[in-house]
C-alpha cells in the first residue's frame, strides 16, 4: 500500500504529542530539549507533507522546513549552553531544582 497524506499526518501528530508529553513529564533538561526537537520535527513533517500533496508546484514548505532545521540547531546550541551553565551553578540539570525565578 502506498503511504498517503493521512499516514504522514498521523505520524506527525503522534510525534507532536509525544514531544508535548515528554516536555511536560521529564525532569531532565536534556530530555526536555529532545522533546522540543520532536515537536519541531513534527511540524517539519507537516510542512513537507502538505507541500508535496497539495501544492507540489511550489517550494515554500521546503524552505520553511530548512529554516526550522537551522533555527532548531541554533536553539539547541543556546539551550545546551544554558544547561551547562545551570549545571555549573546548581550541580544538577533537574528543572525541579531551578525554581528561584518566581514572584
Amino acid at each position: 500500500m502506498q503511504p498517503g497524506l493521512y499516514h504522514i499526518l498521523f505520524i506527525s501528530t503522534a510525534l507532536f504529542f509525544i514531544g508535548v508529553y515528554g516536555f511536560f513529564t521529564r525532569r531532565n533538561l536534556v530530555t526536555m530539549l529532545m522533546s522540543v526537537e520532536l515537536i519541531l520535527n513534527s511540524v517539519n513533517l507537516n510542512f513537507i507533507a502538505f507541500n508535496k500533496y497539495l501544492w507540489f508546484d511550489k517550494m515554500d514548505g521546503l524552505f520553511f522546513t530548512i529554516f526550522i532545521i537551522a533555527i532548531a540547531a541554533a536553539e539547541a546550541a543556546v539551550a545546551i549552553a544554558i544547561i551547562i551553565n545551570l549545571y555549573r551553578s546548581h550541580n544538577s540539570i533537574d528543572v525541579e531544582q531551578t525554581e528561584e525565578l518566581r514572584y
Partner: protein
Amino acid sequence: MPNTTLILLIILLPLAGFVMLGIFGRKYFGNTSGVIATSLLLLSTALAFYTAYGYFFKYGKVDGMYQKLVPFKYTWLQFSPGLSIDMGIIIDPVSVMMLVVVTFVSLMVHVFSLGYMKSDERFPTYYAFLGLFTFSMLGLVVSSNIFQIYFFWELVGVSSFLLIGYHYDKPSAVAACKKAFIVTRFADVGFLIGILVLSYSSGTLDFNTLIANLTSPQTNEYKNAIAASFLGMSALTWGLILVFIGAAGKSAMFPLHIWLPDAMEGPTPVSALIHAATMVVAGVFLVARLFPVYAIAAPSALNLVAYVGAFSALFAAVIACTQTDIKRVLAYSTMSQIGYMMFALGVSKYGGENGLGYTASMFHLFTHAMFKALLFLGAGAVIHFVHSNEMKDMGGLRKLMPITHLTFLIGCLAIAGVPPFAGFFSKEEILLAAYQHNQGIYWIALITSALTAFYMFRLYFKIFWNREHHPLHEHHGEGGFSMMMPLVLLAIGAAVAGFIPFGHFVSSDGTRLNTGFHLQFSIAPVALGLAGIFIAMWMYKKQNAIPGKVAASLNGFYKAAYHKFYIDEVYHFITKKIIFNLIGRPAAWFDKYIVDGLVNATGNGTEDFSATIKKFQSGKVQSYAIYFLAGAIGLALLFIYIWK
C-alpha cells in the same frame, strides 16, 4: 555717537567678575577676589563717567533737547512684527545718571568691603554676589524694552535675596531674605500684569514706541486704551497702577515696605548699596521711565503715586524716630526719602516748568544715593568698631572714630537739608514742586523734613555723643584706608553734589530747566530742619531723662510707632489667620483626603489584585508550558468554533 562697545563693557564687566569669582573664586582667587572685583568695577565706573561726559557734553544734545539714543538692540524673541522682547541699551539723561550713580556707589561699597568683610570665610562669594547685583542693576537702568526691565528687575531681586541671606547660618537673616523675596515677588505680579496690559494696549514692548503710542491722543492705541474701561478707570490707568504696585514693592512704599527693615540683616555695605542707594530706587526709576505716559494719559494713577509716596514718607519718618537699631533707623529713613522721590514724581506734570517735580525727584535720587550710602557705610564702620547694631552700645565715639564722625555728620546735615549740603538743594526743589501743585502734600513733606532732621540727629548724637567715654578704651582703629577712603569720597559727594545744575541735564522732556534758588521759600524748611536738629541735640547730646519723659507723655503713640504701627502683625494676621485657615487648610484637607485618596486607592487596588494572581509565576518551567499550551488550545478553539 555713543561708543556701543564701551557702554556694553560697563554692564558686562561686573558680570564677568560674577562668573569668574562665582566659579573659580573660592578655589583659585581666595583673598585676591576683592581686588579683582574692585578693579573690574573701577574700570566700569571710569567708562560710565566717560559715557556720561560724552552724553551730556558732546553728542547727547540736539537742538537743545537731550535725545533718547538706542545704540544697541538685539531682538531676542519676536512675537509679531511690532511685538518683540529685545535686549537693548537706551541712553538718555536718566539712564546715564543712573549708570554713574550705580557704578560709583557700587565701587565705594566694593572698596569699603575690602576692609569690612576681610576676615569673612566666603569672601569670594560675597564679591561674586556684589558683581551679579551691579550687573543686574546696570542692565535694569539701560533697558530699552519693558520686558527686559522686568528681567533685570527680577535679577536684582535675586541678588538682593542672596545678599540679605548672606549669613545663611543666622535664622533671622534667612527669614529676612525670604520675606524680602516673597514681598517683592508678590508686588512683581502686579508689575507683570501691568506690562501685559500696557503692551496689549500699545501693541509693543519697546519703551520708546510704547511711550510714543500712549502719549499722543491721535493714535488708535491711545484711543482704545483710554476707551476700554474697567471699574470706572481706563485700561491704561489700571496698567499704570499695576506697574506702580511693582515699583512700590521694590521701593518699599507703604504697605509693601515690610521687607526693607528686615533686609538690614545683610552685611552693612550691602545695605548701603542695595537697600539704600540703588536697588530700592528702581521703583522710582521705573515710574520715571514711564513718566510721560503717567503724566499725559493717566493723571489719576500719578495722583496715587503722589499720595502713596507722601504717606510713606511721613509714616516711615515717624517710625524712624523710635527705633533703636541704627540700621533700622537708616532703613526707615531710606523709605521716607524714597517717599519724597515718589511724590515729587507724583505732583509733577510733563514738560517745561511744570516738570520741576520730575527733575527734583531725579536730583534727590542722585544726592540721596550719595549721602545715604555714606550714612550706611559710616554705620558699618561704627558697627565694625563696637560689634553691635544697638544704640545703647554706642555713644561717645567721636574721639575714637574722628573720620567716621566727621563724614557721618556731613551725611546727617545733607539728609536734614541744611545748606549748602546736597540734600538741601534737592529737597528744596521737591518742596517747591509740591507747593506749586499740591498744597496738602507740601505740608506733609514739610513735617517729614523736620522729623528727618530730628531722627537723623538723634542717631548722630546717640552714636557719637551721649556719653563722655566709650567703654572700648583701647583704640583698635576705625578700620583701614579701604574703609575710610569711600567715606571721605562720599562725604565730598554729599557736600558738593547739590551744586550741580541738575535741571540743565535731566528734565521731564529733555529740555533745559532752570531751577532757581528761592530764598523766601527756603526759610520754612530750613528753619524746621534746624529746629529738629536742636531738639535732637537737647534730648540726646547728654544722657538725661528727657527722651524717657517725652516717650511716656506720648505713651500710646510712641508704643505704636516703636512697633512699626503693627503692620507686620497685620500681615501676620492676614497670612496666618485668614489665608492659612480659610484657604490653606481646606486645600490641604482636599489634597490629603481626596487627591491622595484617589492615588492610594489605585495603588492598593493594584496590589490586592496582583497578590491573587502572582502565584502563577511559580518558577516552574513546565507549568508555564502548560499555561502556554492551554492558551494555545483555547485560542484555537476560539478561532475555530466562535470567531469563524
